[in-house]
């Protein structure tokens, strides 16, 4: 329906999926697009899987939540299982290659399944703290919903106060974004 890009990001608390969603939708705003972002929320409990529902479009976005995403990202084994319900025949399913023991749980009905070495790249080439920005890069690379330029602007807007204190952080974040885009290059997800 319409030209809405639907993105579901799922991970463990602390993996930063909600901040990715927030920066991503802010980038879409800067791009002049319509964006809607809603976190899953319930009775606060430790150890729940955190999901962010993001929609980006050129037009007003109808419903706050959706059943199936165009791209669904899972960053932990539990997240892989939890987001199955949001995967359909049009879905590109992305998960981190380092997640073990989920082979049986990968969705059978997805259009495409991509295992990306995000955690490995973050740990070895960058820094574990920018793992979520790397994921954001992968999402942008796969969907092209926002430009790299606006993504950087949105990051600057949100983390600028940190960059002022330590300028090397800005470089690290921007590199993570670019590395993330590279992770899905040539994977023909569009």
């Amino acid at each position: 329906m319409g030209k809405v890009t639907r993105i579901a990001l799922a991970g463990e608390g602390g993996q930063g999926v909600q901040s990715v969603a927030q920066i991503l939708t802010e980038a879409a705003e800067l791009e002049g697009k319509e964006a809607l972002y809603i976190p899953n929320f319930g009775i606060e409990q430790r150890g729940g899987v955190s999901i962010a529902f993001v929609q980006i479009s050129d037009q007003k976005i109808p419903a706050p939540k959706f059943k199936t995403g165009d791209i669904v990202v899972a960053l932990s084994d539990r997240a892989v299982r939890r987001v199955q319900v949001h995967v359909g025949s049009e879905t590109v399913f992305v998960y981190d290659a380092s997640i073990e023991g989920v082979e049986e749980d990968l969705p059978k009905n997805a259009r495409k399944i991509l295992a990306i070495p995000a955690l490995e790249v973050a740990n070895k080439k960058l820094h574990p703290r920018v793992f979520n920005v790397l994921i954001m890069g992968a999402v942008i690379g796969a969907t092209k919903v926002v430009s790299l330029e606006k993504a950087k602007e949105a990051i600057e807007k949100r983390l600028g106060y940190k960059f002022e204190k330590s300028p090397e952080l800005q470089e690290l974040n921007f590199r993570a974004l670019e590395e993330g885009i590279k992770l899905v290059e040539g994977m023909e997800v569009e």
Partner: protein
Amino acid sequence: MNDKPITGEKKVFMTGNEVVAWAALAAGAEVMFGYPITPQNEIMHYWTRLAPKYGRKFLQTEDELSAGFTLIGGVLAGKKAFTATAGPGNVLMQEPMSMAEAMRIPTVAVIQQRGGPSTATVIYSQQEVNLTCFGGNGEGLRVVYSTSSHQELFDYTIKAFNTAWKYRFPTFVLADGYQAKMRESLVIYDPFEKMEMVEPEPFVGKPGTPGVDRKPAHLRNAYSVEEELYEALSKDIADYEKAVPELVEHESFNTEESELLVIAHGVVYRSAAMAVKELAEEGRKVGYFRPITLRPFPQEQLKEAARKAKQILVVESAYGQLYRLVRENLYGADIPLKTMFMPGVGITPEEVREKCVALLDGKEA
């Protein structure tokens, strides 16, 4: 101390709870009384951060009864004041709201519906329609705006203060957990630059000595004889009925062409509207009607919209709360009413579309 929270217009991207706090600030609300309950908490969080910058006040009370009654006190003293609540908090809020109804006290309450009955979920529903429209031991002499977007949340929160103070009926902005927690864009503005804003005035503590310079205000809600109550209530009902044509608001689409009329309110209306517009573009004879005021209900407007309809579909995240209003307001119309009830869960455009297609194709009776 800043005077104007917003000057001119500004495009923003924020959560619905933040929108409500900004709208109340922009409308000139001077004090909020509240008690924590999800999903409205961030209204208080933003208010307590913003309010001191503009000389506004906040009180966290011991429960929603107290939030409602301190709200009444603040209004009686002549302040634009408001509260926000949800679910079980809305249940408790009905006691003070019935007093506001009885005494024509212009309270404003924002309701972020969550799942019910009981504690249920803190997430979302449209199950507080009955309660918000008709809660309390009374006749539902209230105004209830059901919003569907952040822009409306901003516009109608501002409007709620004007409506409350103009008509002196408790006024509610009925949203939901989705609207509370999601982020989307809207334009915020200074309403004082755009429209006439109704000024508040005190009910008690006016200048002069009561009994000497002026009559004392003797405000009550208890009567010793039936006839006394009947007289007071009849006047309120007459005032309410007189205001109905000025208060009712709705939106409709393609009703002249449609054999199937879809009725939805609040955030579900968005899904219904999208499904209907798509089907209409494909040449299907379908339209929608969306009440913005659930109380009073746009009865004449609904009857007009339903004139051509061969069947009606009521879609809601509740088990027939909107349906009851529709049925009552369509009394006499000989049109089959079909339903799509999903109490406590969200409804997507795809789901509405599927149901519409089945009804249009005669595959579902």
